[in-house]
C-alpha cells in the first residue's frame, strides 16, 4: 500500500466561477498556494480578490470550478466546515464583534477548549496592546487595534492557512509597518493568502502573486520577478 502523496500546494483553486446574486463576479480564477509561503492576490478595485477569499472560505460558494485544501476538495462545503479544517479568515474592513470585549472576540474563535490559553504568549507577543485592552469592548478600539484583533482572532485556533483581506486598508504608515511585521512573524508557522491593494506592502511581504483582472486570474508567479516587470505592473495594477 503506497502512502498518499503530500500535495505540492496547501491550497489549490482551479477555475472557479462565483456569482453574487445574478452578477457573475469570478469567471475563472486559479490560485495555487505553496505551504509556508505568503501569496498575494493583486488587482484593481472590484477585480474579484475579496470574492476569491470569500469563495475559498465558503461565504460566497462558487458555482463551478474546484477548491482543494491539503488535497481535499472543499468547494460545496459550508463555511464552518471549511474553517474547521484549519482555514482562518480575516475579513476586510476589520470586521470584529464590536459589542464583545477583546477577550470575548478571541475566546469565540477557540475550536478546542483552552486554545486561547495555549496561544496567549504567541498572540500577545505579536500584539501586546490586546492584552492591555482585554476587557474593553471591540467597538472602543482604534482602527489599528481592531485590525490587530481581527488577525489575532484568526490565530487562536490551529489554522494552517490564513486568508487576510486588505490588512493595511485605512491604517497609518506606522501601523502598516507593525502589521507587516506581525504577518511576517506569523507566516513562519502559517501559510498566508493575502489580498492587498497597496503594492508597496504586497511586494515587501509576499513571495508569490496572482493578478486578478475582471474576475479572471491573468498572471501568477514569483513576486521577485513581478517587481522587475514594470510593464505588467502598469498594465494590471495601474502603478508605475
Amino acid at each position, binding site marked *: 500500500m503506497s502512502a498518499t502523496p503530500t500535495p505540492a500546494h496547501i491550497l489549490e483553486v482551479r477555475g472557479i466561477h462565483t456569482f453574487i446574486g445574478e452578477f457573475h463576479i469570478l469567471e475563472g480564477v486559479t490560485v495555487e498556494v505553496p505551504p509556508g509561503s505568503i501569496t498575494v492576490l493583486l488587482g484593481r478595485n472590484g477585480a474579484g480578490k475579496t470574492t476569491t477569499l470569500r469563495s475559498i472560505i465558503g461565504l460566497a460558494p462558487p458555482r463551478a470550478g474546484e477548491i482543494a485544501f491539503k488535497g481535499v476538495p472543499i468547494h460545496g462545503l459550508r463555511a464552518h466546515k471549511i474553517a474547521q479544517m484549519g482555514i482562518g*479568515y480575516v475579513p476586510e474592513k476589520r470586521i470584529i464583534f464590536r459589542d464583545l470585549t477583546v477577550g*470575548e472576540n478571541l475566546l*469565540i474563535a477557540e475550536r478546542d477548549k483552552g486554545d486561547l490559553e495555549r496561544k496567549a504568549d504567541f498572540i500577545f507577543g505579536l500584539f501586546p496592546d490586546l492584552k492591555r485592552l482585554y476587557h474593553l469592548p471591540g467597538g472602543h478600539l482604534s482602527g489599528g487595534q481592531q485590525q490587530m484583533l481581527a488577525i489575532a482572532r484568526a490565530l487562536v485556533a490551529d489554522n494552517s492557512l490564513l486568508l487576510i483581506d486588505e490588512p493595511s486598508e485605512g491604517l497609518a504608515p506606522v501601523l502598516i509597518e507593525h502589521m507587516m511585521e506581525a504577518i511576517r512573524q506569523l507566516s513562519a508557522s502559517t501559510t498566508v493568502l493575502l489580498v492587498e491593494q497597496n503594492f508597496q506592502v504586497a511586494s515587501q511581504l509576499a513571495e508569490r502573486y496572482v493578478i486578478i483582472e475582471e474576475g479572471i486570474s491573468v498572471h501568477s508567479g514569483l513576486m521577485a520577478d513581478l517587481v522587475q516587470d514594470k510593464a505588467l505592473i502598469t498594465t494590471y495594477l495601474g502603478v508605475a
Partner: protein
Amino acid sequence: MQTYWTNLTPQHRRSWLLVVVYVALLLAISWLDFGYNTAGQTVFRGILLGMLVFLVASGLSLIFGLLDVLNFAQGAFLLIGAYVGYDIYQSLDASVEVRFLAAIGGGVLLVAAIGAVMEAGLIRPLYERPIFQIVLTFGLAAIFLDFVERIYGRNPKQPLSPPPLLNEKFTLFQQSLSVYRLFIIGLGLAMMIGVYILLNRTRIGIIIRAGVQDPEMVQALGINVRRVFTLVFILGSALAALGGIALVPYQGATLEMGNQFLILAIVVVVIGGMGSYEGTAVASIVVGLTRAVAEQLSLEHFDAPVLAETSILLLMIAVLLVQPSGLFGRGE
C-alpha cells in the same frame, strides 16, 4: 459596575439617564397624585406586567437580533403555552403541585418543539427573504390561533387556582394580594438574570451575541451558526410559552391574549432597541410601569381606558424621536 459604565457608549449612558429620570418622574407622579398606598399598588402592578411582557419580548428580541426575523407568531407561542398549560393543569390526575409543574413543563416543551420545527422547516429556507418571513410568521400566527380556537373553543378560560403555597395572601400597600403575583415577578426576574448569565457568561452566549452582530463571521470562525439560530428560536419560543402558562392562574386564558402581549412586546423591543437584550429588559419594566400609571391616571381623572393603551405608543414615539435606534440599540 464601574467597568460596565465605562464600557457603555455615550448613547447608552444617555439612555440610562433618561430611563432613571423617566422612572423617577413616574414614581413622583404616582406618589403625589394617587397617594402612598395606591402609588405602591400601581408600581407593583406595573412591575408584574413588565415581567410578563419581558417573557414574550425577550424571545422576540433574541430572535430578531440573531435571525433578523420579526416573529409575529411569538404571541401565538404565549397563547399555545397558556391553553396547553391550562389543559394539563386542569385535566391531569395528580396533586396540584405536580399538575402545576407538569403544566409548565408540558407547555414549554410543546411550544419549544413547535419553535424548533418552525425554524428548521419553514423559516430557514427564507433567511434571505425578510418580507416572506414576515408574511410566513404572520400567517402561522393566524393558523395557530385558529387551531387553539378549534381545540379549546371561543369561551375564555377562567383563572385556575395556583398551588396552595402560591395562593396564600399577603398585604402590600394595604392591599391583599396572592403570593402568586410575587411568583410571577420572581419568575420573570429569574428568567431575566438567567438569560443574562447565558448571554454573558457562557460560550454559547458569546456566540449568540456575536451572531447578533455578524452571523457570517461567526460561521467563518468554524461555528455552525444555523444550529445556534435554531437554539435561539427554541429559547425564544419557550420563554413566550412560559409567560402564557404563568398567566393562567393570574388572569385565565383568552384567544386575544397572544395578540395583546405581542403588541406590548413589539413596543418593548422597539423602545429597548431591536436585538438588545439589555434594552428589552429595561424597556419591559418601563412599559409595564407606564401602562400601570396611565391606567390609574385614567381611572382617577379621565375615565378613558384608552389612555393606558395610547400611553405606551406615545412613549415609543417619544423614544424614537430622541433615539431612533431605541434606548440600547446600535446606532447603525
